[in-house]
């Protein structure tokens, strides 16, 4: 049975999502609109029998490819999602961004992603919530900090699995102590936490890039078409902000072709995020950002 492995991954992720829902009152799920967090959203529908009783949070840098935002709002309406976004208004107004030419890529990521994320999760900065009746965003009345944050990180994106946990604590400053991770065994997770701290929850930790695409294919999950080649011989492999993300050379026009392409090993020696320019600015870029709370 070819999909044996996918089924095991699905069962484990669903289990984790339900544990998160049972244990955290203020639970959010980060939705970057990319393939991983969209698979995560689909898994939530599996876990809760078609419903998504978890708030979806998107950090809008204002530089996302416009199709991404359209796709986000369409799916939010279709699937009756509790959809919230946050952003760093101040930095955008003061033009403290890389595209404005005022700061480096990495500083820009910090302003528009890391800081926006931190303050949106804590509730210090306004959250905008989609009104499913009107289709418009309104200021969200809920200002409580989220104590459980579900993210679509995968272990194969970077580094060794032994560094990460399904339920991974973050301290008051959103920081991650890589050296002192809680034990995790027999599907018993860390669900107790000190005041002021919160947990990052990683239901996709065991999935690989190929698993994600195989699952999208099997389940027929609607995915933004930015991942597909539309005749230019290029497609996005990883989605980010348009000033810093370049497409890869590929003629895959649909999910099946992407699966086939990944299986040939075409990208075997090229990191998935190689199209993301900010990763190249400093050696341990991703880990630094991760430690600060950005995925």
């Amino acid at each position: 049975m070819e999909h044996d492995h996918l089924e095991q991954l699905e069962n484990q992720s669903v289990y984790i999502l339900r544990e998160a829902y049972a244990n955290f009152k203020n639970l959010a799920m980060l939705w970057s609109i990319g393939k991983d967090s969209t698979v995560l959203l689909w898994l939530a529908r599996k876990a809760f029998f078609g419903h998504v009783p978890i708030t979806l949070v998107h950090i809008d840098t204002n530089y996302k490819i416009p199709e991404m935002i359209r796709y986000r709002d369409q799916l939010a309406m279709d699937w009756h999602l509790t959809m919230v976004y946050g952003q760093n208004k101040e930095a955008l107004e003061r033009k403290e961004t890389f595209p404005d030419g005022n700061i480096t890529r990495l500083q820009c990521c910090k302003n528009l992603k890391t800081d926006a994320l931190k303050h949106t999760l804590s509730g210090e900065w306004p959250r905008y919530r989609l009104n499913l009746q009107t289709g418009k965003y309104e200021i969200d009345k809920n200002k409580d900090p989220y104590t459980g944050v579900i993210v679509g990180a995968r272990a194969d994106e970077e580094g060794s699995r032994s560094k990460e946990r399904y339920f991974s604590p973050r301290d008051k400053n959103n920081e991650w102590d890589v050296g002192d991770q809680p034990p995790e065994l027999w599907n018993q997770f860390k669900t107790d936490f000190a005041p002021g701290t919160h947990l990052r929850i990683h239901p996709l930790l065991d999935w690989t890039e190929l698993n994600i695409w195989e699952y999208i294919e099997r389940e027929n999950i609607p995915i933004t078409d930015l991942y597909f080649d539309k005749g230019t011989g290029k497609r996005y492999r990883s989605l980010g902000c348009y000033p810093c993300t370049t497409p890869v050379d590929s003629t895959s026009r649909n999910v099946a072709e992407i699966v086939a392409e990944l299986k040939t090993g075409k990208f075997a020696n090229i990191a998935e995020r190689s199209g993301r320019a900010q990763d190249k600015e400093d050696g341990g870029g991703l880990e630094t950002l991760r430690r600060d709370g950005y995925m």
Partner: protein
Amino acid sequence: MEPTARIPTPFAPTGTPGGKVDGRIRMNIVIVGHVDHGKSTVVGRLLADTGSLPDGKLESVRAFCERNSRPFEYAFLLDALKDEQAQGITIDTARTFFKSGKRDYIIIDAPGHIEFLKNMVTGAARAEAAVLVIDAKEGIRENSKRHGYLLSMLGIKQIAVVVNKMDLVDYSKEAFEDIRDEYIAFLARIGATPRFFIPISAFNGENLIAPSDKMPWFKGHNLLAAVDAFEKEPPKANQPFRMPLQDIYKFTSLGDDRRIVSGRVESGSARVGDSVVFLPSGKKSKIASIEGFHALPRAEVGAGVSIGFTLAEQIYVGRGELMVKAGEVQAEVSRRLRINLFWMGKKPFNPGKTYYLKLGTAKVPCRLEKINYLIDASETGDRTKSAVERHDVADCIIELSKPLAFDPIARLESTGRFVIVDQYEIAGGGIVREALAEEARAETADKRSLLSRSTVDSGTRGRLLNQKPALVLISGGPGRDPATAAKALESKLIGLGRHAFYLGLEDAQESDAHQASESGNARIESGWETEAPAAELGEAASLLLDAGLLVVASARGLDAEDIKILEGLVKPHAVVQLEAPADAEEATGTTAGLVEEALGKLRGLGSP
């Protein structure tokens, strides 16, 4: 001689995705052993000899060592591979795995230093098989023993012990047999028997992937042949059905009226129509349907599947109960357990302090009653301690603040394992050996007798107020707001001229995490003394009921045991149970449905 018996202890890891990738079977294995006994060398040499390294990697690391005039070490090779992994190159080229003709092996990183116990346990809990390395010259050391115990407790049945660095003892048969016999005798104390013992020289590649001509006296499997002889875990379908309840979902939005009992089947299987029992409450029902989303309809579900059921008769059960099948061996229910425990916490496991035990989805306050004995790995250790310290393995007795449903480890593994939480941290892990008889305990219900009572009975007072006193209990799981619903109901009742009184109970069991975040550790300290939050509510309600009032209470996460306590405390008054509406707007706005339901039930009790 090579022991052929498998470790008889019936535990094994579950929930670790293994399975096939691209048609190749994968197996997760963990390499453990005392520091410097040669774990990295075993892994590095296996990668090299099975042709599993990227081209030129070995040569470039050797060249690097030469240039820097350092002796070559396989550990450097592994470090170099890890660096590549850290840069995000995809899994299949860089994760430390090696191939045999039979399958692919994923090596779960498990450092050997004592400080890394938490990582080692986390890693090893995901493994299907293990290789334990012992240095032939140094012999059995503290972590050789500790890791042996832990593997056994973690449920890894398939273990190959390699006696490494045989070159340093002249490939001596006697040296090998001495270590083997000593180690077998040691493991026998916990009833474990490794499947293979192999003399090797990892550095020189002796007995790694082919028989060694340096040790013609050894007729057993070489290491690769041994790991290839391990089996994938057989399906658990033939065991009794067990499903710890994760939640009961009722998402009323979008017109969905299903009430779905959800969880993951840990063992056995269940079909539509099966009679089921929930433990510890003992409530019974029948499976009406098996639910899923974007999935083919099914009439049966087996181990490993995250699923949901609807029931034929609606019963009040909640997270933490264990669902079993009526016709099968039942799980046990007890408040006193004999366990084997390993401790990872910085602070010791102390008698007198309250901890939480988590087994399946149940979370119950527990206390250490007694240490029977320590299974100590160090030679010098004190075997008669009063507390279980970090890195200790102990056989002990614990008592729980309320009954827990479980299986002894000898019967079923997944419902026989637990962790212990100290404040916010998972600090210990263990297995349940057996249920013990409960000691007689004073019932809380008699506390009321301390107060002297009037001779006017509550019926008279009720008639005066033109109502029959009763406790209306509004409950609700995550996503519901019983407090808001109950307050709304109270004011509606008062509007109708009833004498109602609202009592709110802070979240019970189900939301301990929230409690912890809001009130620090206060709850865990008081949790034991007050027996259960239910008792507190019951005592207060009982006085108000005696005064002739209708008590409207809200509570979250009360389980069947709590309800029993409540019923006992408010007797002879009745408890009317209602569920809060699922979405918040309904709870605050139109409580019409809830009020109707409440009035209906109260009339049913004979209230005007």
